[in-house]
């Protein structure tokens, strides 16, 4: 499903090139809950961005569903993100001018879905994340946990095969964060989706089927927690 083959990603910093990822090779199969951990600057977020087609590797290959991202043009990658991937970000990244329901529906609106079809997908998801009653609220009226649950619902609305979450509990208290991790775990277990979570949170390991540890842009360990 997701495969990294000797991937390097370099970023310019002044006159130098910094290797955010330095020869990472990794394969994540369908289904399951994979946790990616590591200290700050270890390349976790970079890994997720490359896995989601939000960026391209400097060298090596990132394969999504068997095809290298480098060989896809921007439209292909974009459509892949829209239809096959779901993203959950640390800072929620909700659109402030849209309501909860509209934020959740966003990928379907981009697809040009009919309002009845869109509503048919959004309503059950809002129920699932416990926010049906807040569907008309604006993001700034929600708590951090509520916002993150909206983000999870948005990540699921297009029925993706893969959900990528970048520090989903990073801005939440421990209890709320646990709730989000339980939700993501349910997504992996009940829906059979592939969930990859990048996190500092040690409690996330409890939910993981697989724990990958990065350090200085390389895989330090890879196994069951």
């Amino acid at each position: 499903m997701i495969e990294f083959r000797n991937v390097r990603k370099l970023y310019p910093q002044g006159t130098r090139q910094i290797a955010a990822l330095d020869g990472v090779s990794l394969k994540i199969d369908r289904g399951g809950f994979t946790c990616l951990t590591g200290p700050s600057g270890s390349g976790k977020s970079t890994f997720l961005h490359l896995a989601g087609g939000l960026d391209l590797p400097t060298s090596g290959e990132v394969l999504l569903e068997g095809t290298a991202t480098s060989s896809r043009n921007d439209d292909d990658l974009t459509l892949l993100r829209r239809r096959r991937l779901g993203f959950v970000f640390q800072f929620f990244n909700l659109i402030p001018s849209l309501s909860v329901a509209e934020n959740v529906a966003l990928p379907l609106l981009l697809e040009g879905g009919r309002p009845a079809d869109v509503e048919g997908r959004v309503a059950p998801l809002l129920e699932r994340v416990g926010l049906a009653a807040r569907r008309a609220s604006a993001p700034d009226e929600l708590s951090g946990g509520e916002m993150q649950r909206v983000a999870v619902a948005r990540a699921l609305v297009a029925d993706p095969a893969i959900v990528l979450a970048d520090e989903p509990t990073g801005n939440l208290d421990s209890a709320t964060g646990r709730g989000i991790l339980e939700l993501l775990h349910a997504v992996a277990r009940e829906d059979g989706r592939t969930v990859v979570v990048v996190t500092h949170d040690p409690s996330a390991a409890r939910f993981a089927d697989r724990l990958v540890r990065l350090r200085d842009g390389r895989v330090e360990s890879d196994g069951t927690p």
Partner: protein
Amino acid sequence: MRRLLRLFSWRHARRHPLRTVLGAASVALGVALFVSAAVANSTVLRAFEETGERLGGRAKLQVTFASGTGVDEAALPRIEALPGAIAAPVLHRSTTLSDLKEGPVLVFGIDFWKDRQLRLYDFKIPSAELPAFIATALRPDGIVVTRRFAGRHGLSPGSSLVLDTPRGRAKLTVTGILESEGPAQVFGGNFMVMGLPTAQALFTKPGIVDRIDVAPPEGLDPDAAGARIAAALGPAYSVQPLLRRSAVLDDALSRVRALVVVSVVALVVGLFIIYNSVSISVVERLRDIAILRSLGALRRQVLGLVLLEWTALGFLGSASGLAAGYGLARLLVTASARSANSLTLAIDVREVVLTLPVAAGSLAVGTMVALFAALVPALEAMRTPPAGLLGASIESSRAAPRQLRSFLVGMIFIVAASALVLGFYLRLPPYGGLAATVFIFVGVALVLPQLTVWAARLARPALRRVFRIEGYLAADNIGKFPRRTALTTIALGGALSMMVASASFLASLRRSADAWMAEAFPFDLSINGTDLTTQLYSPARFPDALADEIRTVVGVASVYTVAVHHQPFRDNEIMLLAVDLDGLFKMHRERGITDRMKAIDDPGLREAMLAGRDIIVSENFMHRYGTPPGSQVEFQTVEGPRTFRVARAVEDYSWPAGMVVMERAVYRKLWRDDLVAYIDIRLAPGSTPAEVRSRVAETLKGNYTAFLYSPDELRGIAAAALDQAFQLSNVQVLIAVIIGFLGILNTLLISVLRRTREIGLLRAVGATRGQIRRTVMIESFLMAAVGGAIGILAGVAGAAFPLRLHTLQVTGYWIPLSIPWSWIGAAAGAAIAIGYLASLLPARRASRLNVLDAIAYE
């Protein structure tokens, strides 16, 4: 796409109304300036044609002497010999009715039975009674007025009316009322008709009319008919289309056309503002764009969204600008028509017309400007991968980007455009020089970002020393966003440069005209037949003999007379001043010959002028027609063509198409015209102007309507006329300055927004609200100061070079440069005021940010 537009663009606009309005307002203002000038130009031209058609009726041609002074009625039978041609003699004058405090009115002296074949006169009289009515109405003391004029002044058949004429004040009787048809529709009803013999007795002499109007035979082209009539009449006559534009009209129109140029510059300035607003808007919404892209929005979906947004804003701005421009056009048209009618009534503006091409063109231009301004930053945002966009919101640590490529391109622009202006200006087509100036403006806009980076770097230590950390942060922020800063300062600079250039040009013109009048007028009082405060060029005339009467008034030491004639010359109309040279120079010597007059106080020259060999021309005449001293010019006179030698060229601002001075006796003989326009008086020692004024008024009372002016009063009238002429360009400049102000305000608001986190961190580590406010204000002052400096330098340079050269090309006037120090001070003051005012709201917002919210802001 409609849904995305509604969810993103409309919601965002509602949440940030000020920013949305600022962007649209810039487009609106630029379009308003453009529309006002375009509408005024087309309205004045159209009004001229319509007025001519209403006055001309079926007539398409006019016949005059080739000299331009009327035509003799003897030519009539030869014109009528062309089968099917209809011809009618006309004497037409603009005059005043000082008793009614009305004027100017257009008076037609006609042969009714010929004229009615050309023009429609509706007296509401049955046809059978018409001959008897006309015999009465057009009797020697009769005059027919329009229904509207009669209604305004409570006149009816039998009422008295006093008309100001060269023969004196003529008491006439209203003998008929003309309904609003044909020529009676013009000038709000200020149109009157009298019999031709009556008009000739009052304004000229028997046998002479101003022109013979001709309707060509049915089916014959007017040009062909004109050629046949000209062949039949011979070279002593001129056959022209009826709708011929005068030099005064052309001058009024050229000023309106110049405003089009000003508005183009303002639109370019507006373009920079919009580009700035749009690029800031796009960057401000990078996070939204990043989220959309990460969720699967295609590049073209996002690009389309941004472009559609700004197309809509551009269209709305353009529509607002169209409405505002129409309102401004009405002011422009009134001023232009007044100016064009200053010699003779030629333009009756009844409605200000916004034509479909102008409306559609303005909407298109404004919308395209906004679209173009949005395209570049939007494409830039699309080039960055979504992951890059997600990380792009925090930029407080970003180093200043390099702008070297744009700097080099800008330098090429400046050097090339400068070479063009300096080397080839006089060979460029009209407005070519001004176009080159716009290129210099664009070049400066391209070099300014890199200059900003360098300047900010250099200024940081000094600003830190003077303003402490606040100055350092302000300079740092300016240097971090050089393109944004540069565009803002150049927009303000452009606006202020227009202000300074316009003021400099006006000051130069006033100073030159004032100095000229101070030296050229040796008299203490001048008698005119018209109130010059309402009509700058007096059409009124006095008989020659009146000067002799004035000489006998106690307190008058000497008198000389000046005749004024508008002479056709090379498709133009020049002003011919026929001066009693002996009287003039006697008066100059009595006063003390000035340096300016010394150059022409030459007995040999005077002798040649008295003999009719030499003339003196104005410098603008020399430049316009290429007639330096020594060259020969030919004028058509009543006595036939006559050649004169140009003896001297002198500085003179009497007439935009050029002025010629000749000896009055020569003019009287060759043009057979013994009327004078001005009688100039020198006071005897011991007499006061007030005493002599009242004695002269007493002498003229009841016989002539006359207005007496001292040289100081004439200078005041000229200055007021210049001020009025520039009033509307000042409105345009003011609008451009407002655009500059909006630019700085917009930039600062966005700057505060984008530095929210940085500001939060500063507050968290101990910066006070006052320090934050001061940082924003210093940034604003720096931008305004640079904008002001650019504006002042560019304004003076613009006045010194392209404006003066353009004036030389178009009018022949070479105006010595005058630095308008008071206006430079005003521009500097405006820059400071703008810097202060534009900073108030952003500084307040910055200082009131909640520290915790600001730190958490992404």
